């Protein structure tokens, strides 16, 4: 039979996911040989019309990374959905919105205002602002696309079959997923192609947890030099390992830094941030409001801490303006 047709595309992402694919290193060759890459803008010269020319469902599997911010991204996602048997949301941006999703805490207007009116490096009294339609004296009209207030996850725009988490995903997980799919060993639709258990399960420090996992104080990473062997959460650092899907082998913890949750939540969880917050609040070992307030003051940015990678996928995915500017 002919080699399975594979497409890679990136929407609103940083390119790290592409790197993750390239990081397959030697392993990329057998994969490249096993498949027929029909579309991969970042690495190969192919055109959108090549995709448009394809039969519907002609592509066996499309890996799409990045969140959705622009109409073009939405169009492309929809096109690939139409042309593909399977669509895999590749990486945390496509899966949960990712770090760019933090933009949902602000809005387009504020961004434009700051960047072109307030940024310290602007020329004195800046007066120009990019326009969606500009008539150039000599040439006619130049257009810039309108970009959205909201960053969305891929499955908020198209139907997604599988998810590969991680910022970026690990080459190994990617490889396993790809092989599964090539072999046609398809897990149930909607599955996240990573371990079902949380990071703690693969963290060697888990054994070092105390009898009672309760903390009397919360520390910010720059405030302490944590012991390199014992559980960071037990040391008062906000390690989100307990709430975060495993699969990375606890890389950050191995580097003596707390897990920030880039693999996203486990299957039963509806709202990563809400649950992670609940865990942290629960294990603070005090019934004294004053103590608690002091403790929580060490979490000056709950949204950025608990929703760092998943705001667009949260139950409340976007900041609501209390009083419009």
């Amino acid at each position, binding site marked *: 039979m002919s080699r399975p047709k594979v497409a890679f595309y990136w929407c609103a992402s940083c390119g790290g996911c592409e790197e993750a694919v390239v990081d397959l290193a030697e392993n990329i060759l057998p994969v490249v040989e096993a498949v027929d890459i029909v579309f991969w803008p970042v690495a190969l010269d192919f055109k959108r019309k090549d995709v448009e020319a394809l039969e519907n469902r002609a592509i066996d599997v499309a890996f799409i990374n990045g969140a959705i911010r622009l109409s073009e991204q939405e169009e492309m996602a929809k096109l690939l959905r139409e042309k593909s048997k399977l669509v895999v949301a590749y990486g945390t941006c496509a899966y*949960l919105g990712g770090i760019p999703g933090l933009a949902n805490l602000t809005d387009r207007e504020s961004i434009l205002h700051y960047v072109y009116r307030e940024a310290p490096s602007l020329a004195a009294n800046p007066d120009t602002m990019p326009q969606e339609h500009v008539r150039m004296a000599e040439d006619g009209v130049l257009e810039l696309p309108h970009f959205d207030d909201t960053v969305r*996850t891929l*499955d908020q725009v198209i139907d997604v079959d599988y*998810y590969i988490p991680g910022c970026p995903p690990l080459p190994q997980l990617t490889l396993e997923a790809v092989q599964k799919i090539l072999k046609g060993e398809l897990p149930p639709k*909607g*599955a*996240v192609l990573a371990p*079902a*258990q*949380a*990071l*703690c*399960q693969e963290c060697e420090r*888990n*054994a070092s*947890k105390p*009898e*009672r*996992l*309760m903390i009397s104080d919360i520390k910010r990473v720059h405030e302490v030099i944590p012991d390199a062997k014992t559980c960071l*959460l037990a040391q008062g650092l906000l390690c*989100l*390992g*307990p*709430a975060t899907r*495993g699969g990375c082998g606890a890389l950050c913890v191995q580097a003596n830094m707390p897990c920030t949750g880039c693999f*996203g*939540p*486990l*299957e*039963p*969880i*509806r709202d990563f941030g809400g*649950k*992670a917050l*609940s*865990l942290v609040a*629960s*294990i603070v070992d005090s019934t004294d409001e004053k103590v608690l307030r002091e403790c929580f003051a060490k979490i000056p940015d709950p949204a950025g801490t608990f929703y760092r990678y*998943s705001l667009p*996928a949260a139950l409340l995915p976007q900041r609501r303006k209390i009083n419009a500017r």
Partner: protein
Amino acid sequence: MPNEHNVPALPRIGVYVCHCGTNIAARVDVAAVTEYASHLPYVSVAREYKYVCSDPGQELIKKDIEELKLNRVIVASCSPHLHEHTFRLTTQAGGINPYLFQMVNIREHVSWVTEDSAAATAKAKALVRAAVQRVVFHEELAPKSYPVHPQVLVVGGGIAGIHAALTLANAAKHVYLVEREPSIGGHMAKFDKTFPTLDCAACILTPKMTAVKAHPNITLLTYSEVTRVDGFVGNYRVQVKRKPRYVEENKCLGCLECITGCVYKDARYPSEFELGLGKRKPIYVPFPQAVPLVPVIDAETCILFKSGKCPKGCVKACGDRAAINFDQKEEVLELEVGAIILATGFQTFDAGRLPFYGYGLYPNVYTSLEVERLVNASGPTGGEIVLRDGRRPKRVGIIHCVGSRDDQTNRWCSRVCCMYSLKLAHLIKERTGAEVYNFYIDMRTPGKGFEEFYQRLLDEQVHFIRGRVGEVNDWAAIPEEEGKLIIRVEDTLIGIARRIPVDMVILSVGLEPQADAAEVRKLFNITSSAEGWFLERHPKLAPVNTFSDGIFLAGCCQGPKDIPDSVAQAGAAAAEALALIDKGCVELEPNTAWIDAEHCSGCQACVALCPFTAIRFDAERRVSVLNEALCKGCGTCVAACPSGAAQQHLFLDEELFAEVEGVLA
């Protein structure tokens, strides 16, 4: 995010909306709610009915389950605390698992608290919809059954506690009766006569007290207090602290020679039992009929304890029985009981809180309880009613409702003051021939023979003045008032202010919750009313039950009542306890949590959070494991579990999320 509810076997729901006569129907448009429900997803049938809890109502449900093959049932009527159990049984009788039922509270939470019919109907609809969305996720469950300890703990040795203990003991159940005072008997032991029959309190109480002592099925623990309670219905573990009385109960014969032998030739310390009107020695029995009749040594006043030097007359007197043991230490007992009856009683209102009545200022202003001792033949004056200076009072004023029916102090009526005031009035007049004035707000005599007794006093020429007394003082305005206490009152029947000079004033103090009622409530984990009286599960249908299964109430700890009511309630409490332990096992709500090893992150947060140490970490499998027998179903581990591995039956995430969505949809 991939997180779809997965709906099990296609649900077929029956919804039954209750009129509850007019209780619901008068406010909620039941027909509209039923119509609305009938169009909700998975609803096979929706009916309205006058009283769903009635037999025909329940039959209706059973029939539908069988004929329409329902696999879910919803009843929208009253509070689940009232009828959830009823309808679960109905559901079961219909042939499906009782937990495939959900109750909607559209009476207590809707029709009774809402004026606007439209709003009430809308709210009822929302709550029904929530139940429909929720019940879809209900699972088949079996109640957890546990064996019960056949023993019962009775706390408080007043008449209520005594009666409850004897009732159970006579039913061949073992009872631990705990009393913090050196003797049982409670307030009743202080009384001389009891209204309205005027039979002697001692004569009817003492036999019961001795019966308690003698009963093989009763372990009497006086001078003791409950210090810890845990476990659950049928399986309570109770810790009892026994204070040292320095006289060993098992050796003492109750000859009381030790008291005679005490170096103090005469009693010089105020007697607690006599409310300070009488005196006792450092070694004493509170009163002659005390049970157990075993003296107590008060370390505060005993010279041996104070100075270390004493000829130990008591020890000599006791001789080779050697019951006296100065080295006795506090002792802690661990009891296991299936049920607990609280009969911790009341305290009387502190008359000092109303300074304008002169209590504590004028020696001849007494509280009613003090006078009970004065008129008591075994009391400090041998039943002689005399003033502090020994004179016989010629005129006596009895002021009702002191610390009752009063916004400044206690708003409630203490129920017994009118009657005991009449009783005292009668006894005083009988024994002293004095003129007796009753100052009352309303005369309340609703009880068997009560009104007749009131009539009798009217016939005995006792004076009754209707009006709340403004003040008691000794400021004589005219010679006749010299040396007397003047009671100033507005006689509301003739509408003039009056000054009544008397020799003795009796303040009919009201009943209050015990000073430490709040601690006791927490100790036993029950609720209490705003006033501090222990709260019954239902004012009418469960008057002796509490919200904690297996803990029952008897006597005045639940609210003011007289002796017959206390005894009746004690009997009821005993019967409830008996019903519980006689069955041999209890069935508990299967609302326990469990941990799905599939998803458990092994983070161990839940281990420390569980208040009942029901969760331990299995280092082998690197997951937390929950012991269902210890889990009480609070669900705090579920709320904390960061991986969603902890879940709770009857309160599954799916169920709660669906319900919240439903009330808002």
